[in-house]
């Protein structure tokens, strides 16, 4: 074992003889004029390992940079084997070989990518519309069994985490409000604050973030893996459309599950506030519920539901797009899954800001 290790270490070592040769010839090359030729005799070197060959190759590179042609003479047959596969271009870094893009080229490349992404997204929306609205009239119905499967995965399996986090958010909102409102003897308005915050903002947003992290990532990873393992191609060769079998069921499931989970989040968030208000702050159960009832408006609930539907659509589009357009094997699946979650959350918060502004002016 120890001997094997020693042999490996020895194989990866540059011998003193080669090192002194390289040192000596480097100095000589430095002093030569461009256009001259420099010879290095390897007749005394019976064999070379890969590391030694690469070290000698650096001499050729150094000579080339000074315009000096370096040639190895008297290379033994066994020694020349070590050079096979080596090339000066191996010493270039990948960036150098690819060449840096100028600012203008870089802007152009990003624009082309953005245009391609936009085109693919529009194609995807068109495909969704086809399988949802046109295909069922041509005898190709919606795959309800696959849709139910996805509803269970996204909706039913997401109930515990949405319940738990919404409860905590409701409780935290109540505690934060209490420290301020108590100073004015207005602690009972905690109920209003929790109810309005949850229905308008927090419930749709918390649910969207949880679903993006839990299910959006799962959708991207699953579709991406199917792309990598050629399952999607196999579907296409069997005349089975990925749009009908994979895309539409996931979109429908999200559009059904996210508003339902948002509703659940509303209830548990308000209960979290109630729990703090009644059990910790001693506000009185009847009073708290009465106050909550007065604060809850149908318009707020509807606003929240509209938001949750839009969030569901955004999460679905991003997750499916990222999944279907995975490149580069397992690494690509990982990268796209991360990108899917980040993009979904950013888009949901952006959309939320836009909606809140619109509803603010409308009301």
């Amino acid at each position, binding site marked *: 074992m120890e001997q094997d290790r020693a042999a490996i270490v020895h194989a990866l070592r540059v011998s003193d003889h080669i090192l002194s040769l390289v040192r000596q010839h480097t100095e000589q090359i430095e002093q030569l004029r461009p256009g001259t030729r420099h010879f290095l005799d390897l007749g005394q070197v019976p064999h070379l390992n890969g590391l030694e060959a690469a070290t000698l*190759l650096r001499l*050729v590179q150094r000579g080339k940079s000074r315009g000096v042609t*370096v040639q190895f003479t008297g290379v033994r047959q066994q020694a020349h084997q070590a050079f*096979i*596969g*080596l090339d*000066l271009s191996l010493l270039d870094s990948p960036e150098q070989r690819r060449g840096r893009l100028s600012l203008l080229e870089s802007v152009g490349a990003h624009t082309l990518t953005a245009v391609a992404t936009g085109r693919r997204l529009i194609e995807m929306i068109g495909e969704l519309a086809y399988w949802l609205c046109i295909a069922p009239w041509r005898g190709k119905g919606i795959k309800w069994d696959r849709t139910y499967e996805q509803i269970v995965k996204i909706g039913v399996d997401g109930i515990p985490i949405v319940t738990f986090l919404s409860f905590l958010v409701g409780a935290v909102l109540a505690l934060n409000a209490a420290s301020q409102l108590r100073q004015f003897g207005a602690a009972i308005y905690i109920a209003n604050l929790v109810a309005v915050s949850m229905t308008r903002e927090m419930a749709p947003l918390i649910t969207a973030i949880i679903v993006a992290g839990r299910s959006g990532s799962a959708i991207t990873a699953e579709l991406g893996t199917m792309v990598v393992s050629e399952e999607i191609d196999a579907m296409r060769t*069997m*005349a089975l459309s990925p749009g009908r079998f994979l895309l539409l069921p996931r979109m429908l499931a999200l559009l059904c599950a996210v508003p339902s989970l948002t509703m659940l989040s509303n209830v548990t968030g308000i209960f979290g506030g109630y729990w703090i208000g009644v059990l910790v702050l001693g506000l009185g159960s009847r009073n708290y519920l009465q106050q909550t009832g007065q604060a809850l408006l149908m318009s707020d609930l509807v606003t929240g539901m509209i938001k949750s539907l839009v969030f569901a659509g955004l999460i679905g589009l991003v997750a499916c797009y990222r999944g279907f357009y995975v490149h580069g094997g397992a690494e690509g699946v990982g990268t796209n899954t991360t990108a899917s979650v980040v993009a979904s959350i950013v888009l949901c918060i952006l959309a939320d800001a836009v909606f809140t502004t619109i509803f603010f002016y409308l009301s």
Partner: protein
Amino acid sequence: MPTAAASSSSHSAVQVDGLVAEYDGRAVLDRVSMQAHQGEITVVLGESGCGKTTLLRHIVGLLTPKAGQVLINGRNLHAAGEEERERILRDIGMSFQGGALFSSLTLEENIALPIIEHTQVDRETATLLARMKLCVVGLEHAARLLPAEISGGMRKRAAVARALALDPGLLLFDELSAGLDPVTARELDELILRLKEHLGMTIVIVTHELGSIQMIADRAVMLDAGRILATGPLEEVRQTDHPKIRAFFDRRPRARTLHGDLRDSLIVNGERYGTGSG
């Protein structure tokens, strides 16, 4: 280009004319023309990376040609409307290099899926048919297993069974025998011969296995760096006097040579490397 003369007068199930394919601006297939005749086995040969799989993916419509056309029984898959395209594809069965079985479905569900989707049969009948197909490839005992629970060789056989699901007229196999034990590979070769002889299927196979080529191929298409090197009946291609074809059939390894700058910098036995015998 040494091209063996096409001697068969039978009808072309697959006709590729002047196919050009590009990937990132790099030509992968350059004006490739070939035919696979009805009821014959055509093997596509060539070194790794020469464009064999790309050719197969164009034939089955997964890739769109940059130029040229692919006709399946005289119909252009790439120009066909949705229904026409579906009709053409229903008559093609393809087995991918890695199997490409649906990982969330059992083997019998994998095979039953296209049957359920494209025929009027009920689920039970489709499952029965799926088991029959699995029986053909010797996997009846694994019907209820998931692809992750079986070996790579079994996955390939299951993929063949799935390709046979709708009894297609045209079968495409990508690297069918690669990674299989000799007994299984031989069994698959015999199955392919049976499919041709008894059912008259047209079969196109990408393969490297010389034994398999010798046993099953009627015609061969030899590709090299995206171009056709030779095409025609197997024996004519074999006899073609082209160094790369000779090297392929004689299993002669490529000479390992030095690259670029180093070629000029190395003098072996008094001669510049590459100018002499070295």
